[in-house]
């Protein structure tokens, strides 16, 4: 009995319209690293939120050390020594590291904070587990890696025994991932039990003892890692055999489409340069990928190219024409298509219907308006053609309010709109974020098709697997500079990782590629 520290038995959780968890069982042994594998939307996060007290299960029980417990809120979870590192860190950015660690369990006299003793304890913990932090640094100024260490220290400070890691590697470099794996092993050897949520098979294979798999809200099974292969796991996860390797021909780049020279961009909030003197080009028939850790200037670089952000210095040319000072609309008309990083923020007006979203940049074309009056029929017909051609699925066809559509179909709608513009340059920023394998495959194929049709493609991705699979040429960005350029066939993820953390630097100039 006491083998299991935590048992989640027959857990179901329903949301309006969906069964996020359907009769799921998960048993965690003391001192093990237990992976929870599933695609985006398989219900992993919901299950963990139930365990952490953020949601109440509609059915099923949770047992701690064999006794049934009720976890109504994070406080209950904390009392049961359960801690969690969330996928999106739960850190107050303007607080110091120290304040974040003690938040909620502050040592105090009559309500007044006592910080000095706490500092001792935190420094000891950080030394013991090799979690390097600066207790007085303000969170918004520290690296993502350190933020994660702060999250781990938050759990250790609370003496938690059951540690949940929700997709902890998504934001890390290969080196940081290795480091995290070591820390996790160390924690397990100290008697902590770890739940490790991931959809990356290699990480699970290297660190976990056992693995439970979820698919579409259902429990598929639990396997011992030493008795399984990545292929088996991926079949369990997706429900069919998945071709992990994309098929694509060798690139045949021709003339330059996008030509960026000495581009510098300043952040809008602070005056700092976030893109520094960047020069590169993208040619017809190739996929160029900008790799890097989140927040190293990729977003701003793309926004400067598409016109969403103002540049400070440098020039941008499209097919030989200077577009540096063109408006967003002019750039779009001249042939830039942009699949934005955040589809809800930039890509769609969620409360407009599908038809209205399909003409987001085109409503002013004579095709769709006359004397400023919108031709609704024309828009409807156009949208109908697009959703048929690109297999966008929605409840009420083109009249569906986009907010009610699934993430995958929303993304497909954007891709349909952007590809149908028949652009010279397709910019795709994290085009597969948060999607399931089916949608990812579809989108990858669509991007390669565009390349083969002779478009120039600029891809920005944080997922190194995607970078390696999809691109022909890789540029690494670190602190606003391009620090390395590789052919994707001639580089390993480890090498990329070194450049992404700034451990290695080359000066990238365009001459190399010409």
């Amino acid at each position, binding site marked *: 009995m006491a083998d299991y520290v935590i048992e989640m038995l027959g857990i179901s959780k329903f949301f309006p319209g969906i069964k996020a968890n359907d009769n799921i069982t998960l048993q965690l042994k003391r001192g093990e690293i237990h992976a929870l594998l599933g695609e985006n939307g398989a219900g992993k996060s919901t299950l963990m939120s139930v365990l952490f007290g*953020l949601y109440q299960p509609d059915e099923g029980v949770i047992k701690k050390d064999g006794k049934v417990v009720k976890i109504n809120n994070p406080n209950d979870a904390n009392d049961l020594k359960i801690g969690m590192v969330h996928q999106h860190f*739960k850190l107050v*950015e303007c*607080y110091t590291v120290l304040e974040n660690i003690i938040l909620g369990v502050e040592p105090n006299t009559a309500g007044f904070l006592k910080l000095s003793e706490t500092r001792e304890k935190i420094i000891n913990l950080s030394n013991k587990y090799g979690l390097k932090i600066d207790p007085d640094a303000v969170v918004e100024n520290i690296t993502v890696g350190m933020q994660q260490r702060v999250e781990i220290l938050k759990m250790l400070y609370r003496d938690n025994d059951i540690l949940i890691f929700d997709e902890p590697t998504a934001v890390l470099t290969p080196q940081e991932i290795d480091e995290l794996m070591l820390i996790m092993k160390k924690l397990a050897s100290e008697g902590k039990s770890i739940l490790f949520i991931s959809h990356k098979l290699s990480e699970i294979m290297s660190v976990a003892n056992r693995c439970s798999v979820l698919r579409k809200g259902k429990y598929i099974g639990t396997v011992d890692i030493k008795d399984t292969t990545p292929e088996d796991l991926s079949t369990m996860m997706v429900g069919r055999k998945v071709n992990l390797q994309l098929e694509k021909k060798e690139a045949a780049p021709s003339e330059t489409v996008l030509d960026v020279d000495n581009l510098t961009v300043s952040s809008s909030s602070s005056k700092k340069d976030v893109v520094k003197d960047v020069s590169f080009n993208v040619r017809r028939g190739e996929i160029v990928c900008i790799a890097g850790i989140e927040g190293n200037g990729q977003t701003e670089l793309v926004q400067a190219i598409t016109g969403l952000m103002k540049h400070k210095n440098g020039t941008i040319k499209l097919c030989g024409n200077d577009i540096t000072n063109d408006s967003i609309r002019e750039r779009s008309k001249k042939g830039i298509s942009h699949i934005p990083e955040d589809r809800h923020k930039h890509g769609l007006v969620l409360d407009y219907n599908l038809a209205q979203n399909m003409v987001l940049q085109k409503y002013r074309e004579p095709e769709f308006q006359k004397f400023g009056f919108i031709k609704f029929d024309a828009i409807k017909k156009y949208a109908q053609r697009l959703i048929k051609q690109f297999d966008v699925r929605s409840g009420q066809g083109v009249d569906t309010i986009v907010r009610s559509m699934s993430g995958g179909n929303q993304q497909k709608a954007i891709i349909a709109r952007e590809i149908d513009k028949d652009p010279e340059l397709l910019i795709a920023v994290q085009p597969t974020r948060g999607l399931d394998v089916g949608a990812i495959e579809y989108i990858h194929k669509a991007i390669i098709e565009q390349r083969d049709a002779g478009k120039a493609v600029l891809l920005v991705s944080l997922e190194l697997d995607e970078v390696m699979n999809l691109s022909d040429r890789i540029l690494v960005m670190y602190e606003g500079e391009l620090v390395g350029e590789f052919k994707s066939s001639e580089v390993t993820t480890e090498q990329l990782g070194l450049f992404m953390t700034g451990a290695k630097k080359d000066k990238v100039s365009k001459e190399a590629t010409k």
Partner: protein
Amino acid sequence: MSAGLLILIKFTLLSGIVLMYVALGGCFSEHSGVINIALEGVMVIGALFGILTLCVLPKSLPGFLIVTISIFVAMLSGIIYSSLLAFASINLKADQTIGGTALNILATAIALVVVKRYNNVINPGSQSPKLTYDNSLFLFKVGPLTLNVFIVLGLILLIASYLVLYKTKFGLHLRACGEHPQAADSVGINVYKMRWAGVLISGGLAGIGGMAYIVPSVQIWNFEVGVGGMGFLALAVMIFGKWHPGYIFLGSLFFAIFKSLANIYDSTFLANFHLTKEIYNMMPFIASLIVLMFTSKNSKAPKAEGIPYDKGMR
């Protein structure tokens, strides 16, 4: 000239302390994540019930008691009235700006109905929107300057506000709710409770602020006027003061100088410019617009302010 300086100081202190109370109130509310645009209305309600208490309490009571009770009532009525905003914006997740605007409209109307009704009962036939009261208990003299109890209380509350916000567990929790409520929730802080606390504290401070605006300076008040935009000016002071009690104190004095120009222009060298009172009345508002122009670009506003917190949405 020195006489002019003296009255400048007097009026600056008078309105500066009012702005400080209310801006501190706004500061608590916004640090918890709720934009309190209803401060103007809360001031009116605080002033109304504070002054009514002052009118109703028997003169035979010790002065100390009268002062304490009426200020307490002003604070309490501010707290109760702001609970309407808290309920709407925290529990029902209503739009905070609309809710606040409603309370502003409502406050003046309620004040007028209550005052007219009160006057009618005291003096049948009267429909006056004015209340008359005795403010001598609130005033005391230090040398040539006439000061009032609100200045003393205000300075105490200023220091208390600083300590509470930055040195206590409560303050750490409160500010976390305005910056990143999801983070606060994940470590077991009850975001709803903290936001309620923030709004109620702001109501209490604005309630006292309303009374402090009216009582020390005059002995008769026309409630058709409300509090003449002081609550809104306090919002500007709060923004100018970067949501921090220390800067808010300086900011309120800065704005108060502009505010007091209208009171002193005719008795100082300003009289030479032959400008009307209305022009001086405009000054603080113009000043606040200009200040906003220079401060809006890098605002220190709590990140989650104005966004209703929904436990279900993570």
